[in-house]
């Protein structure tokens, strides 16, 4: 395939690891206080991050483009997010990294736990821009982490989908060589576009950082922003028909004794840990 159109979909979430146990307890308690509707943690003051698997998908797309360029093959890269404005800084970074098209589809509704509606919006957007040769997505993303969205999108578009992808390489005759986890092991196979690849625990997991020069080169470029309504999808209305509904949230009790082991040096503390906590347990193994 002389020219390959790669589109990457990604999601931006609050950094949930920045929240503390009381924040989560309030979220679950808020659900109870609201008399039925689910609560949600307060995240307005928490930084936003790329979904970990989405970040890997974006970097894999760039590496695939680079490998094809070395082989004399053309590639166009586009990225999109179904999101509110919080995705814009990430889209601008992707423009600086060479994504020729960076788009945001604003659903004007909270789709965190609505995989069917999310997939419908994504599939409709992709039909609008022309279905890509390769759609790269993260295999799952918070807070719902259902893992179903890539398959639901693939089904809407009539495409095969491989999930838990850890690597993508170019192969002969326009095919791609993908490595993925399945059936308790790893498999490598070739697949012919068009296809959906859902990225899992790729070793290449961190997105490269653009240079200041790269950023300045695209500073005048605008993002494509459209609402799901402009695509003909009323996401808020579709949510009412979503077949799965989050009803409430519960905390998870993981508390253990947390006994502090005393000592002045690492050696003393190791000895105290061994004598007071470990010796008998290790002897029973």
């Amino acid at each position, binding site marked *: 395939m002389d020219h390959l159109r790669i589109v990457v979909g990604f999601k931006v979430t609050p950094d949930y690891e920045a929240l503390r146990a009381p924040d989560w307890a309030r979220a679950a308690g808020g659900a109870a206080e609201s008399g039925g509707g689910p609560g949600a943690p307060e995240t307005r003051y928490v930084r936003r991050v790329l979904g970990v698997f989405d970040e890997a998908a974006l970097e894999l797309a760039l590496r695939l483009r680079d490998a094809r360029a070395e082989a004399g093959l053309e590639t166009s890269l586009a990225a999109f997010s179904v999101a509110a404005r919080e995705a814009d800084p990430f889209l601008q970074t992707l423009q600086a990294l060479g994504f020729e098209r960076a788009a945001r589809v604003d659903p004007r509704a909270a789709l965190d736990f609505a995989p069917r509606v999310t997939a419908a919006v994504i599939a409709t957007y992709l039909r609008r821009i022309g279905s890509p040769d390769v759609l790269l997505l993260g295999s799952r993303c918070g*807070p719902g982490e*259902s893992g179903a969205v890539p398959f639901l999108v693939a089904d809407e578009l009539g495409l095969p989908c491989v999930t838990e992808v850890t690597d993508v390489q170019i192969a002969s005759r326009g095919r791609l060589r993908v490595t993925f986890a399945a*059936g308790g092991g790893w498999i490598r*196979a070739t697949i012919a576009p068009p296809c959906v690849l859902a990225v899992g625990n790729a070793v290449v997991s961190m997105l490269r950082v653009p240079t200041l020069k790269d950023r300045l080169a695209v500073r005048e470029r605008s993002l494509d922003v459209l609402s799901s309504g402009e695509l003909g999808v009323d996401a808020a209305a579709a949510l009412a028909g979503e077949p799965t509904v989050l009803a409430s*949230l519960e*905390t998870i009790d993981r508390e253990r004794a947390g006994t502090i082991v005393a000592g002045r040096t690492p050696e003393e*503390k190791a000895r105290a840990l061994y004598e007071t906590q470990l010796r008998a347990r290790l002897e029973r193994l």
Partner: protein
Amino acid sequence: MSARETLRVAAVLDGTAATAERQARALGAFLREGLRLGADVKLVAATHLFHADQSGRESLLELAPTTDVRLIRTPALRADLMTAALTAFEAGGGAELFVFPGGPLGTELAARLAARTGGSVMTDILDAELSGEGLACRRRVYSNHLVGLFELRSLPWCITLDAGWSDARPSAPNEHVVQTVAELHEDDSSASGPLKSVEVLDQPTTGDLEAAKLLVVAGRGAGSRDGVERVAAAAARLGAAFGATRPVVMNAWAPPDRQIGVSGARSAPAVCLTVGVSGAPAFLWGVERAGFIAAVDTDERAAITGEADAVVIDDGVAVIEALADIVASERP
């Protein structure tokens, strides 16, 4: 609307995968202990057993967690054929609840089946209960910080099971009533399968982590690749399996097959020692069934300190090396 008297369940077992036994354990345990029907509702369950060839058929049949078994012969890695077979079954009256083991194939089959039948999909279920006309399911959300209770409204309900179900004890052997319902071949699809030149890679597995009685886990607090390697060496001297958190693996300080947590292995050791692990819930999922957890970390405010049985506040690498010295000196 009249009260429900039965619930028709299809338990889907992929006998083409090496994980068939674990899948069967999960399905059997969920049907026994994870699905609450109410006193007046009778479970009518059948196993849909996909298998690749005739030779291993009998041993696969022994795994089936229900009396009724529907055999479907299919080439391996053909989710498209499996989805089509299940969709056809559903169109013929099928089942109200489809239960798939956790994992990529289960997720694909559940999602595509729900999409094609207008049903509901929910993955990684902890448990489920009939609730009015719907199914109430619990699953972990927010990176394992919370559990969400979901209502599945549209039939069929297509669910996959949380990985924890595969650790359950096996079902008691069943007498089976077997029905061969389909022989799926390449020609059954409009196109041949999407994957070509398939190679099963010979790579290390996480089996030692899952079976470990003593486990040492290195986190980012180990500080460097050298620090992680020192923790791994200490683990070897202790006779422990060695695992690592996702940040450690993502930094390439440890190989991917060492990863513990939601996106890695799940272990249930008698004793778990964590070194420089902050205690993110996505990691804790991997060790929460440990009998005893001792955490070594420099940060006394780290989440792990509230989630461990014993806590040492100090340099983790130094402490685990000292501990390995002590244990070595105590051995006869």
